[in-house]
């Protein structure tokens, strides 16, 4: 029992990471209608920029983090203008596949540039033994992850709730045409959404890299579970993405410990199918009104 409890707690720690990536994906999906399959590689690239700033430029960790965050914001904007914005009439499916293509391109570039030495050991932002909960030692890095996740989600929530920018995002998500009519700069807002989600991704990569190491494909398996968490949570719900992701993390880790790694994958997939079948709108989503 203690073992499963520990597994559950470790699952929450992983689930928070999924949740943070999920936040970025849901935010983009809500305000621009694009399911961003490049979120993982964008994040990894941010991690590599940070790493390269330390090793190639000799910057200290904190400065490298700043460089990486700024660089990913710029990259996010560039992605929006180069990959996403042209030919909006091509349709959602086309644009969704563009994100997959972008993901392949970034992955190929990272393999080329950094693949040879990968994976790289990334310095932990905090050192220390962590805290014992039940049989599980919560490493200091995981505590940091939880704190950062709480801070980011709190900030985003406040941003959406109180700031004019957040208000504009919500208006754009709800009625893009009306938002344009009211003089809200849709292009700039979309670019900003991409910047924010790229920065969020980089934050996750930097938090994750010390334990999972940094390699071009580091985020791939995370992304799959993140998308699953989002579907479980209800596609357009930010709290839903968090809830779904934590559920995925816990279910997966508990099953791995109780049965096997293989079973962990199968049980999460079964969970996905069951939720899709019984509650198509997800746990916190709104049901669709049209039935077919």
């Amino acid at each position, binding site marked *: 029992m203690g073992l499963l409890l*520990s597994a559950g707690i470790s699952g929450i720690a992983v689930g928070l990471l999924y949740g943070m990536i999920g936040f970025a994906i849901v935010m983009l999906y809500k305000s621009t209608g694009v399911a961003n399959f490049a979120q993982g590689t964008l994040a990894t690239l941010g991690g590599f920029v940070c790493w390269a700033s330390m090793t190639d430029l000799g910057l200290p960790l904190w400065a490298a983090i700043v460089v990486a965050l700024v660089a990913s914001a710029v990259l996010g904007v560039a992605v929006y203008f180069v990959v996403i914005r042209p030919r909006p009439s091509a349709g959602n499916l086309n644009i969704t596949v563009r994100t997959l293509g972008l993901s392949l391109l970034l992955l190929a570039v990272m393999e080329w540039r950094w693949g040879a*030495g990968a994976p790289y050991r990334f310095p932990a932002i905090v050192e220390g033994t962590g805290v014992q909960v039940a049989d599980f030692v919560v490493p200091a890095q995981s505590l940091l992850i939880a704190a950062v996740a709480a801070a980011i989600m709190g900030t985003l929530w406040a941003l959406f709730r109180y700031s004019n920018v957040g208000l504009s995002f919500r208006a754009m998500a709800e009625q893009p045409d009306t938002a344009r009519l009211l003089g809200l700069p849709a292009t700039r807002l979309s670019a900003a959404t991409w910047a924010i989600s790229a920065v969020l991704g980089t934050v996750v990569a930097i938090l994750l890299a010390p*334990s999972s190491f940094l390699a071009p494909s580091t985020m791939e398996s995370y992304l799959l579970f993140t998308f699953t968490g989002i579907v479980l949570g209800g596609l357009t719900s930010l709290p839903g993405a968090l809830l779904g992701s934590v559920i995925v993390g816990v279910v997966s880790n508990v099953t791995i410990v109780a049965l096997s790694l293989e079973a962990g994958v199968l049980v999460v997939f079964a969970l996905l199918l069951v939720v899709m079948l019984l509650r198509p709108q997800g746990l916190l989503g709104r049901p669709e009104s049209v039935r077919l």
Partner: protein
Amino acid sequence: MQTSGVRTRRWVPVVAALALLIGACGSGGDSAGGSAEVGVSADTIRLAASQTLSGPGAASCAPSTDAAKLWFDKVNTDGGIAGRKIDFEVLDDGYDPARALANVRTFEKDKFAMVGACGSATAAAIYKTLSQKGIPFLFPTNGVSEVVKPASPGIFQVLPLYEDQTASMVRYGFEKSGKGSIFVVVNPLGAYQSAIDSAKKQATDLGGTFTNSAVATLGTTDYTPIALQIKQAKPDYVVMSMGGSDSAKFVNALVDQNAVPAKAILGTTASVAGSFLSSYNPGAASKIFFGSAIQLPAGKDADCTKLLAGTPAVDDPIALTGCASARAITTAITETKDLTRANLMKTIEGWQKKEVAPGILAELSFSSTDHIGISSLFIVQPQGRAFRTIATCPYGEDVQSQGACTAAA
């Protein structure tokens, strides 16, 4: 119908363009060697490898063929082998057996021999084709027993199988720290189920116990769940057969969760890689023992050490292995009088306690029935950012015949 003209017109140019495309591709391909043996001409010997150059495995695999290339270049600058230069082509297979097989099909018409590279799955996929066509496949890193047991014509390897290694490591651990319980963790490298079974058999044969095992895909990001299982099971030994960075992640998770076993962490040659050293948490170093095909640090005077000096690869066990294997290949070619594939195989089968890369590889012995060359396994331990050899254990096909290990000086 009204618009059918537009509809039917479109296919004419499509087909024309297509015919041109196929024609252009097709004209590229015919060249036949004019010499007695495929891939050998008066001035050239063509060798090739199918290697994992892309994907998650690339980082740990590529250095072996890179180092081999360096060695062949050196041989060429020194005048080649009996006036023949070595032409070495490496194609990427992305650790995909099907692609490896496709590469072999491009090689089969004009390459003399295949140089071994990373990967049990790829080796298992291609060895039959190579064997049937009589193409030598020299020193792959392979853990699938059917590739070499029983010996297939032309397929030679230096490294012992993982299933033999796990058994040897259990034996070494029990010899050093006394018998106890073991927990086995493997990535799907080679016949991983056999690796678990043979560790289990060895442990029980020697009076120890087997608690459990776990299988984790290569590249697993989070080893915490397995560390928790081990923490619960409290084994004396953890036996692992895992890739370099996976070993590091796993060891780190054990340290983080206070789950390091009481006696030792025992690993196979797969863990002996630069990617382990760059990423492991040294907190557990004193309890880690890996089997290694090569002596570490490598002898200062060894050819390969000198060749790789000044490059990052000099500390990389995989690069050293690659260079040493290439050196063994050029040795074999040099020793073969009339250079045909069959004669090359005979040369290698004739090696007994052969020093091919002194200071790096132990002596190699082959015969017509035994195509695994190594005669002893080095036991290495990580120290900071390097490995150090702490013992040498005799190794033979028959586990029971293996003698006691001797500590290094």
